[in-house]
């Protein structure tokens, strides 16, 4: 399942980039994220309540940030399992400086296994796109709020 898109943020890449790697920011921006603890270099153990409508899964797993090129790009890998199924994904995130600030490009692939794949296949693409959109929407709010103070 492909997940691609972009998001525009007001601050310049140098302000945006550190926040993208800051667990405190990530925990607030990843929809339904309730725990984000550093386990080892670039690896966080996480608890994410994700789902759509009445269907919620508590995904226990890890987020790994790697191939960090300061202020330019990095790779985020996510793996989690819940009673409704497993979710694995990886995306490369690139920052592009624009006149109005930063444009973030994200391109990734996600795999879902188990019950939610076999029952919800018609909804998964939309759910994945929504999670990505919500992440960058809350990131924009987060980043805008901080830079204004």
């Amino acid at each position, binding site marked *: 399942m492909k997940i691609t898109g972009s998001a525009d943020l007001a601050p310049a890449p140098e302000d945006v980039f550190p926040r993208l790697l800051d667990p405190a920011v990530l925990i607030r921006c990843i929809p339904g994220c309730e725990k984000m603890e550093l386990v080892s270099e670039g690896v966080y153990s996480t608890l994410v309540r994700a789902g*759509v*409508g*009445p*269907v*919620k899964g508590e995904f226990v797993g890890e987020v790994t940030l790697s191939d960090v090129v300061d202020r330019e790009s990095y790779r985020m890998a996510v793996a989690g399992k819940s*009673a*409704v199924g497993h979710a694995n994904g990886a995306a490369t995130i690139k920052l592009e400086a624009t006149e109005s600030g930063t444009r973030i490009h994200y391109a990734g692939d996600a795999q879902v296994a188990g*019950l*939610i794949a076999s*029952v*919800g*296949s*018609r*909804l998964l*693409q*939309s*759910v994945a796109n*929504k999670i990505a959109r919500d992440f960058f929407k809350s990131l924009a709010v987060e980043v805008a709020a901080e830079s204004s103070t």
Partner: protein
Amino acid sequence: MIPTSFDYVAPESLDEAVALLQKHGDDAKVLTGGQSLIPLLRLRLARPGVVVDLRKLSDLGRIESAGEALEIGAAATHAEVMNSAAALEKCPLLSETAGEIGDVQVRNTGTIGGSLVHADPAADWPAAMLALGATMVLSGPQGERAVAAEDFFVGLLESAAQPGEILTGIRVTVPRQPAARAYRKLAQSASGFALAGAAVQLALDGDTIAEARIGITGVAEHAYRPREVEAALTGGALDASSVETACASAAEGVEVLEDIHAGAAYRGHLASVLTKRAVLAAIERAHGHAS
């Protein structure tokens, strides 16, 4: 096949029901017909701690004419709406749409309110609600509020009902007369849900369309009104080619869903074709006075 354990409560009054939802928050789920919730419980996709059954709130099941409007209780089953004399008389699009839902068993138990709050992108009711400009009446901790159909269907399996709020009724004003209506749907062959469906409520003026309200379901993440098509139809002629031209943009400006049953191109095409067929069927029925 076996849900997780949960507590079951059947409140005697609406206030008690709202209080219960308030108390348990996200951990509580409302049960009316069960056609949306119970499959999720059985597959363990939903795991509520508390199920609040509204079966004792009998007045939620009533369907009444109130002057120029029709009040439909959220707990009315699809079959009750289908066979309701008041609906047939004042707003036959409701009965026609109800008849297209699921199967006999689902129509006997599933409720209009349950379906609307569940907001499946391929459910039939949302299209009719938009075409009729219905209003959803929600009761919650802050009392009652009304939400127009346009604002009620927010996203994928997501309605405007906030946690703790209960959809108690649907208010439909009698469509502007002389009226013409039709619902045309292409069902997904396994589930019976709409690959695409178009509900149309027109007001005719001689041989032109005075007003056109259309609801399209199954095509996007939630039901929507194809504004361009409505505008193109309004004031337009009733002949097939004018209608066809007007309906061409039925999927414009919408992110069309795609799955193993239908690709985006085909689904977008269905939006136009089914809207056209619904409009023409409505007109023909109004002129032919067929039932």
